[in-house]
């Protein structure tokens, strides 16, 4: 329907943690209203300290049908995990 407001993807940064996380989507006429709507829909229970909104059609997503070529090759490459090294004691927690 052409009368519908565009869809926005909402990212919220919580009280703890440095990154914004995708929490869902909503409709709004423009970016400013999308932030207000996100405030009302997704931060009612004190969830956030910062909001990002991105119009959904500005997101380019990988295709599910490309799953094989995109991700399977890395399954057999365990040497890419940094688990084959002994970490010296004095380094401490990493």
């Amino acid at each position, binding site marked *: 329907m052409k009368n519908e407001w565009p869809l926005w993807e909402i990212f919220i940064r919580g009280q703890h943690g440095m990154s914004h996380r995708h929490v869902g989507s909503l409709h709004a006429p423009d970016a400013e209203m999308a932030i207000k709507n996100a*405030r*009302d829909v997704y931060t009612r229970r004190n969830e956030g300290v910062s909001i990002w909104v991105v119009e959904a059609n500005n997101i380019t997503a990988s295709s599910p049908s490309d799953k094989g070529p995109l991700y399977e090759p890395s399954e057999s490459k365990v040497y890419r995990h940094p688990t084959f090294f002994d970490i010296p004691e004095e380094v401490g927690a990493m």
Partner: protein
Amino acid sequence: MTRDEAFLQFLLRMGDNTLILGHRVSEWCGHAPVLEEDIALANTALDLIGQTQMWLGLAGEVQGEGKSADDLAFLRDAWDFRNVLLVEVPNGDFGRTLMRQFLFDAWHSIMLGRLMKSSDDRVAAIAEKASKEVAYHLERSSDTVVGLGDGTEESHRRMQEALDYLWPYVGEMFASDEVDAEMAAAGIAPDPASLREEYDALVQRVLTEATLTIPDSRFAHKGGRDGRMHTEHLGHLLTQMQWLQRAYPGATW
């Protein structure tokens, strides 16, 4: 009129404004044009009801008859309410609801700003807490008024009609009587008339951006804040709001 009698009237005016508007706005719950607006309106209604608990709670204390905020909200009849007529008029369409919200929010934000400097610490504390909520209400309602006023031909027409309908109810928010004189003398609350200039500047700025025209007339419907004559709409609203406590006295859940 003693100072406490005037103080009680003042608190009822504040609490009844937020109670009746909160109820009106809550009528949209489940009916708003889109889900996002539905939740936003419900949030606003809940903020207003929360503020009512504080104002009417203090009113009960000052009255000294052992009445709670709930008693005052649910067990008074129409003539005991002290809200301005603006907040009791029916919602109309979404545009009129948001225009009413804007006209009230603008007054409310200026009023709370003054009350934060009240000589009564309890009043100042309530104003301090409410002012953050109301700052957001005003931001949201003014944005919507601009969006719809300066929107399509139909939304512009509806918003102008809403403004024409509601404008005669604006003047009552700035009326002054002996209650206000007593409150101003005590430094508890400002004389409402002293808020008008700031209000007019704010409203003019937003409505100009919304491409809407403020009606020329300064005629004002009155009778709400002194309880002399409410509109017929208040009684209908109370039958909805109060029926449960009336039919099942003392019911809780």
